[in-house]
Structures are given as C-alpha cells and as structure tokens.
C-alpha cells in the first residue's frame, strides 16, 4: 500500500507546477502540504509492512481497496484547504467522486476555482479511470503477484499475457488519445467562439473528464456553459471512446476493425442505447418537453449517451430532470446508468458485457426448450475472441449484477428515509454507485452528512465492482476464524 500511496503522492506535483505557473501561491502551499502528507503516510506504511516480494491474489485486492480510501483522504487535503468546502467530509466526497470517476460535486463557488485545483480535480479521474494500481504497476511495483491488484480495480481482462505489459499498453493508448482528444477539443473550442487560452485549458479538462467518463466540468453549469454543439460533439465522441473496452481499442489498433461490429459488448451497447433512447423519447413527448425536433434529439441523444456511458455531462439544469423530463424520462436515464459502459473501460455500472451474457444466455435457454434434453450445447460469444460461456461466468455476472442492484436500492432507500421522493432518490443513488454523476439536485452541500457517507461508500464499492470488498470480507472472516 505504501508503494501505491507513494505513486499517488507524485501526482500532486502536476497541480503544484500549474499553481506556480499561474501565480496561485496560496494553492501551491496547499499542494506542498498534500504532497508532504502523502509521502509521510506512504513511508509509514512502508515502515510497517516493508516492500513485499510477492503478493497473494487476495492481499492484492485488499491493498487496492484500502488504498482507495487512503487516497480519498489524501486527495481531499488540497480541496479542503482551497476553502471551497464547508467541511472535510465534503472535500472527501469530491475526492472520492474524482477517484471513482463519478463526477458528482458539492464544491462551492465552482466558477471561482483556481487553475491548479481544477487541474487536480481533472487529473484524479484521468489517472484513476485507469486505476491507481494500474499506474503503480507501470511505474513503481517490482513485486510479483500484481494480478490481484489489477483485478481489484474492477479489471479482469488482460490485453497481453503479462499484466505489466498490459497496463503499459493501456497508458500508451491513453496518452495518445489524450494528445489527439485535446487537440480536437481545442479546435472545437476555437470554432465555438472561445478564446485560445480557455479553449486549451477547458479542452484539456473536458477531454480528461470525458475519457474517464467522469463528468466533472470546470464551470458550475456543466457543458451547458459553452452553449456549443461542437463542444457537445467533442465530449460525446470522447466519452463514447472512454466507455469502450480497452481490449477492443487494442484490437482496433492492431487492425482487427471488424471486431467493432462483432463484439458482444458493442452490440449490447447499441441495443440498450436504442431501447433507452426510445423510452426517453416517449417520456419527453409525453411531457411535451421540447418544441422542435432539433432541440428534442439534441438533448435526448446527448443525455442518453452521457448516462449510458456513465459520464454524467448535462446540458440542462439538474432540477429540470424532475420538473420537465418527468418520471419516465428519469427512469430511462436510470436504466442507462444502471447498465453502464463496457467492461475493461473507465465506465461504471453493471457493464454491457455482463448484460450481453444475460441476454445471450436468456436467448440460449429459449432455444433449448424445444430440443431433446440430451442435446449438448456450447454457448459461445464473440468478445475480441470466441469465448465459451460457462456456468461460472454466468454466476459471477449475476453476483455483480445483484451487488449493484442492492447498492442502488439501498442508496435510494436512504434517500427516501431522508425525505426525498423515490424516483429522484433512485436516480441519484444509481448515478452515484454507477459512477455517472448526473444529478437531480439531491447532491448538495446541504445534504445530510449520513447521506454523504453513504454516497462515498457507494462510489467506492461501485468503482471497485465489489470484488475487492468481497476480498476484505473474506479477509476479515478468515482472520476471525483463526
């Protein structure tokens, strides 16, 4: 854990440099405090545990899950010291929101936030979208048994046989996309009538946020602030790419372009997108929300994609989901957030791969009904390569699906207990646990502290896809028995 925290600490240096460049000296001091504190915590852990030669699978997962909690507390230091939060809990909320690429914020007076704090807000999801463990493996870890750390952050697939090579590929691809994405958003910013200075910085931050499917924006009115269809287009492309499986990116880069049309996840994503979009359209027509087709489709497509990819960008005010989109509109977005993006991406939610396995298995069972009981079936799916689906895979998918569902519902019940209506509570809870970040207005600094804690736990559990939490439970149970 000490190695991971030490790796995390060095990222404070980037906003520190930004603060010095923009003469934000009070923020620079705050980042020095955060950096020094992180180094102290990291070395204290190293003193306690030492640098292990080999990690067991379970230890790797336990370390990852606990590291995220420690990272939340450390990441909250510059946020709290910036004076934009009324309590350290609020700063922790935003810190976890960034780490888990959720994008919900209770930062006050966002429009007067410094360049360096913004840099930190966007850097955290960009890094942690890939995973803290992933970056640790690339640069710092020289220990064996890092597969537990890798899977502990909700990743299961290996692009290359070696984990270290896999994560290096992930980072290479991410950095290439960063350069291309920022250049495109910069050009779109200029085209939208924004000055070159702001086009660059907002382009950089919006790209980082879109790619990480986070949903943080540098201004309080999200993407609505830019009043630009070009910025909407740029963020849409970036968030869709971010929500795609990394293995698929690698396959496409390797020249296997047909995989884009054959992959079960992409097919599932398209199917669920069309379904959700249709439900949303019915809801918006029922409410008479938009007067013309351009407005209608512009809002419906953007928000469906934003919710489904768990990005959380919005071009309407949060209150308008309730007052103008109605319950059906909200339910459509809830379904999108519930499912989420592709596995092995920066997106959250149950994931399209698992939904694809469900749909495919459901269809397979229907087909089997009319056949003799002695018939032997081999259930195959196309996901980068042909995969034979077995009971263990289905059981694992069901377990994750149920874990997400229970978390969503628990969060909604807590909201209802605190007096919020059920549908908005469910919307907010699903948005939180799936890492989306769309809000109907429940998330605010005035929210009860207990709800803030529940939402922090939801973000953490949802981002790590419960596997690490099961590992902690297993660790506690087995220790208890001894």
């Amino acid at each position, binding site marked *: 854990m000490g190695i991971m925290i030490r790796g995390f600490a060095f990222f404070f240096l980037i906003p520190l440099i930004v603060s010095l460049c923009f003469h*934000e*000296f*009070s*923020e620079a*001091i*705050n980042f*020095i*405090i955060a*950096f*020094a*504190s992180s*180094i*102290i915590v990291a*070395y*204290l852990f*190293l*003193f306690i545990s*030492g*640098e292990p030669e080999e990690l067991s699978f379970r230890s790797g997962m336990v370390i990852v899950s606990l590291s995220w909690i420690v990272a939340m507390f450390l990441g909250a230091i510059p946020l709290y*010291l910036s004076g934009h939060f009324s309590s350290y809990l609020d700063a922790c909320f935003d810190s976890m929101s960034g780490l888990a690429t959720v994008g919900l914020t209770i930062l006050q007076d966002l*429009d*007067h*936030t*410094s*360049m360096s704090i913004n840099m930190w807000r966007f850097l955290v999801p960009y890094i942690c979208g890939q995973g803290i463990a992933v970056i640790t493996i690339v640069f710092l870890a020289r220990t064996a048994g890092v597969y537990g750390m890798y899977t502990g952050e909700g990743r299961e697939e290996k692009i290359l046989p070696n984990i270290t090579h896999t994560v290096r590929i992930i980072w290479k691809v991410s950095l290439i996309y960063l350069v291309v994405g920022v250049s495109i958003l910069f050009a779109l910013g200029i085209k*939208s*009538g*924004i*000055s070159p200075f*702001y086009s660059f910085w907002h382009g950089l931050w919006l790209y980082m946020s879109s790619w990480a499917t986070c949903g943080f924006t540098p*201004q*309080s*009115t999200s993407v*609505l*602030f*830019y*009043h*630009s*269809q070009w910025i909407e287009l740029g963020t849409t492309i970036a968030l869709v790419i971010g929500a795609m499986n990394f293995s698929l990116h690698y396959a496409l880069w390797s020249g296997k372009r047909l995989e884009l049309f054959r992959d079960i996840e992409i097919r599932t994503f398209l199917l669920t997108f069309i379904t959700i979009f249709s439900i949303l359209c019915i809801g918006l027509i029922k409410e008479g*929300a*938009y*007067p*013309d087709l*351009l*407005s*209608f489709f*512009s*809002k419906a497509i953007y928000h469906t994609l934003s919710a489904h990819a768990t990005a959380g960008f919005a*071009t*309407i*005010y949060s*209150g*308008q989901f309730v*007052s*103008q989109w109605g319950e059906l509109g909200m339910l459509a977005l809830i379904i999108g957030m519930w499912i989420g993006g592709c596995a092995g991406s920066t997106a959250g939610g149950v994931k399209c791969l698992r939904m694809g396995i469900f749909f495919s298995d459901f269809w397979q069972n229907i087909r089997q009904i009319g056949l003799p009981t002695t018939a032997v079936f081999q259930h195959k799916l196309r996901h980068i390569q042909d995969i034979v689906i077995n009971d263990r895979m289905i059981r694992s998918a069901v377990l994750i699906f149920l874990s997400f569902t229970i978390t969503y519902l628990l969060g909604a019940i807590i909201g209802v207990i605190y007096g919020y209506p059920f549908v908005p509570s469910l919307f907010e809870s699903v948005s939180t646990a799936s890492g989306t970040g769309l809000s109907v207005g429940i998330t605010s600094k005035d929210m009860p502290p207990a709800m803030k804690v529940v939402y922090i736990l939801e973000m953490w559990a949802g981002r790590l896809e419960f596997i690490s939490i099961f590992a902690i439970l297993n660790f506690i149970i087995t220790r208890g028995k001894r």
Partner: protein
Amino acid sequence: MKEEVRIQESEFRSQNSGVRIQESEVRSQNSGVRIQESEVRSQNSGVRIQESEFRSQKSEFNILNSGFWILDSGFCILYSVFCILFFIIAGSVHSLCLNDLLSEPKKYDHQTIEVSGEIIGFSIKKKNGWFINVDIGGGVIGVFTKELPKIKHYGKYKEKGDVVRVQGVFYNTCKEHRGETDLHSQSIEIIKRGKTIPHPIKKANIIAAITLSFLAILLVLFYRRFSGKITG
C-alpha cells in the same frame, strides 16, 4: 381615528403585465396604512421591490377582520391606490433568481424579465452575437446578446466579475439554441464593476508545509538508511 384596515395574503394577479404580489400584507392601523413583509427598495430612481410577486390571473382582495373600506377616509384610499400602482410599475422589472425561473418555467417562458448578477468565466462568440454566463443567484444562466457590453472583469479565481442587470426574453427551451434554457437580452447594464480578489497565503499553512516537508524528508532518509534492517 382608531380604525383598522387590514389586507392579509392578498394576491393581485395580472397575467398580461406579468406581475405578482405574494404574501404581502397591507395593514392600516389607526389612521395610517402600513405595509408589512414587503420591502420597497430603490434601484434606478431608488425604487426596488423584493420578495413581492405580482400575479396576473384574477384580481382579488381578501379583506379580513374589518372587512370593509373606510370610504370616508380619502387619504387611505389614495395611499392604497398609490401603493398598488407603485407595486405594478416597480414589480414588473424586479430581479429574478434561477430558482424562480426553473420552478415556474411556463409562467416566465417567452416573457420579458429582469435578472442581475455577476458575469462568470468568459464570453463566447456566436454567429449573430455573444453568449455570456451570469450568476443570477441560485445558478448561472446563459445570456445571449447581440452586442457585448464593455466587460472588464469576468468572475474567476482571481477576479470578482462585473455585475450586470439584464432585461430580456426568457426561453425555457430556446429554439434558436437547440433547446437551451437561456435569456435573450434586450438591454444589459453594468451596475457594478468587478475587482481583483486577493488570495493571501496563510501563515499557518506555510508553517504546516515547512514542517511536513521536513518530516517527509527525514522519513525518506531514515527509510533508505534502515529499510533493509527493519524489513529484515
């Protein structure tokens, strides 16, 4: 003369002129007329009304307690008429916040309203005008204007933005701008210039930074020196 005339929770609604009075109590005790819970302020010529809303559906007065007007008191009548006219004229241009607009979008949609607040971020050039974002209290709204006023300060980390008063047409879902909720300005007036916001460095933070940095360096050096011995 000790007679009490009291109008409670009177709502004066006039839809065409788009004005509303809510929860304003006009009381006249003794020989005087008193206005409670409504604030009369002056903006241009020194007149502004806050927390009073004018409505325009039906005009209705509920006269409680006394239940009648004192017809023989010409002064009271004239004064009341003056107050109502004053509310109508001044209230028709009272500043709204974002929550007002979003909570009753149908009421304000396509209506001329007035808002005031700080200009945020930066202006955005469009084909036939500019967009500026104004924090009108409760949130930021996009204001579309054909001519950009001479803005010196935009609200950001180091600056408090210029405060403007905008009169214009509110669109809940603007056809011209792909369904955005925005305000098309008819007039923009800068009512207060922004200023630079100082961000002084706190002494306590400097001391904390130095102390923690020193501790961190010591710990790293100590670990490098003794880590092999500690971990065995």
